């Protein structure tokens, strides 16, 4: 039997390493597991949609280049929780944190830095 630990899925395609690192740090700080998978799809929204669909927790992030998108399972097409084409460091960190907060049912962090 394969037991999967519950985790947030991050589907990437040619992801910018700096963006990916900050997104992962955001999830880690909230204490939730995550898995990154390289996926041949050139749309951040599609990546996020599939990640959310496949994640046991129903929360997924798609990264294509620098573009990041956060989705939750069940959310209609075209409605993202958060998405940026060229996010700042804080925005990357927050998107990671928010993917975890979505599961913990905590209010989302907004862009106030610290």
């Amino acid at each position, binding site marked *: 039997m394969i037991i999967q630990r519950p985790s947030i899925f991050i589907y990437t395609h040619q992801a910018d390493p700096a963006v990916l690192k900050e997104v992962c*740090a955001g999830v880690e*700080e909230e204490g939730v597991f995550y898995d990154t998978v390289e996926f041949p799809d050139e749309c951040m929204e599609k990546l996020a949609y599939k990640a959310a669909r496949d994640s046991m927790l129903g929360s997924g992030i798609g990264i294509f280049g620098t573009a990041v998108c956060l989705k939750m399972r069940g959310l209609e097409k075209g409605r993202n929780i958060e998405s940026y084409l060229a996010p700042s460091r804080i925005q990357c960190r927050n998107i990671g944190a928010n993917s975890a907060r979505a599961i913990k*049912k905590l209010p*989302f962090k907004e862009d106030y830095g*610290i």
Partner: protein
Amino acid sequence: MSYIAGVDIGNSTTEVCVGEVTGNGNLTFLTSASCPTTGTKGTIENVYSVKNALKLAMSRIGRETSDIDLVRLNEAAPVIGDTAMETLTETVITDSSMIGHNPSTPAGAGQAVGEILLIGNISRGVPGTPYILAASAEHSYEEVAAVVNQYGSGSGQHDGIDIVGIILQADEAVLVENRIHKKVPIIDEVRRIDRLPDGVPAAIEVALPGQTVRMLSNPYGIATLLGLNAEETRTVTPIAKSLIGKRSAVVLKTPGGNIHENILPAGEIYFHGDRNITINLDEGADKIMAAAADAGDIRDISGQPDTNVGNMLSRIRTGMSELDKSAEADIRITDILAVDTLAPVLISGALAGETCLEKAVGIAAMVKTQKLPMQEIADRLKTELNTEVKVAGVEAVMASLGALTTPGTKLPLAILDMGGGSTDAAVISDDGHVTMTHQAGAGELVSMLIQTELGLSDRHIAEQIKKYPLAKVESLFHMRMENGQMTFVDESIDPRFFGRVVLLTESGLIRIEEEIPMEKIVQVRREAKRKVFVTNAFRALRKVAPEHNLRNISTVVLVGGSAEDFEIPEMLMEAFTDYRIVCGRGNIRGSEGPRNAVATGLVLSYVGEQQ
């Protein structure tokens, strides 16, 4: 046939009602409207809101204000309500000496004592001394972890320094913890980390998951950790008090620092009535209200000069003096309602915006002037609208007339008019004789109590909390109402509301910015309403009841803006069940709900006068 308009100018709302009277005295009500009062009740600024409300009402039947033949204004009682709040205690910390807050994700658990060591001064550290490392947001989590692993004693070097705890400015506690070899308590999200002095002994504590700090919220715990003597322990008590309920805390031992818990000179209130009574404000609301009752018919109320209450009452008085341009001595405070409350006040000298619950008293005062310049308003309206304007009828009588249009009522009848600024009561006997009273304290005092007790930044959101029920958005597709019921929606809720407490208004959701649990908001809201309206309803009705006995009243009709509230009428109904009183929200003309009683009464009285 002619159009008659009744206009009621209230403390917070102006209401109008338009009726058509035929030659043989038949009356048909056509339309009504209400809008917020401009300026203080009884001033010339009111003209704008009156004109607005009339326009709104007439547009509903496709007509112009110029079609109105007669406007009847209420002879507003020359009483105006105002509110003020004063804290009785304050905590002052000179030399910042503590941090207590609830970061969402601290790391590690337990407590530690050590000397504060800024990360830039790491080379200063010597082996053998315990240190608490402090790092600003400029240092990334990787840098901090690397420094701890390199210099810390866990690194395998036998001359490593002993790091027992870490304080971070950025939200990175878990990230650092996952990268260091030795497990220590880590506190993050400390905004004013630049105020931490280097080289000062400090105690740090992170609570276990699901718990709150134990050692640092206990004066003896602080004494144990920092080695304080009895006198020093006494001075840290306010710190311990303000750390109760926190998930993480730091207490610094600053030798020169000082903490005070001041009791502010609250001052005395003087009642000038049948008996002159003096009472100190810090005796609490119950004693003050008992004193007010003992004083009998109150001519004026004043406060001890140069004290909190003195300033508070004179502020209310000067605020009202612009209303009546005659000498200030003509303005008298004839009633007050005092309510005990707790207000979270920012501690001066705190590092992360900590607050302390301080004792406070909220006061609503009823200010009486000789007479409101209603005639001036009428004259101005007459020139601006080009119609006949008449000041007619005493407010309470008109309200009673209007209330009688509620289906299922008959004389004798008591009305309780709960507005924004005052709670008025009137009893009409079988022969039409009216007894009335005006009491301080109504909707605005409730808003003020909600605002202070919840520590809200503005009054507007407190008003909204008063008016609308709450819900918590638990997922993007459902929310839990304050009564436990679940509501599901077809289309996903805006992520801005996710996980937050929201107000359910007619025009969608309003989110509450402060992170306060829904149960707490509900409790504060209910308590504020009960403290003000139930207390006042009994006070007011007892005053007007025959022989001052509530059992001599059989029916009470609730009218006014606050009677529209979703829970106040029920609270009063419950409170009155013991007295076998029929009590309920009025329904003016069977259609208007509890509003528009005075305006309706004004139109009705016109027909009466014609006959």
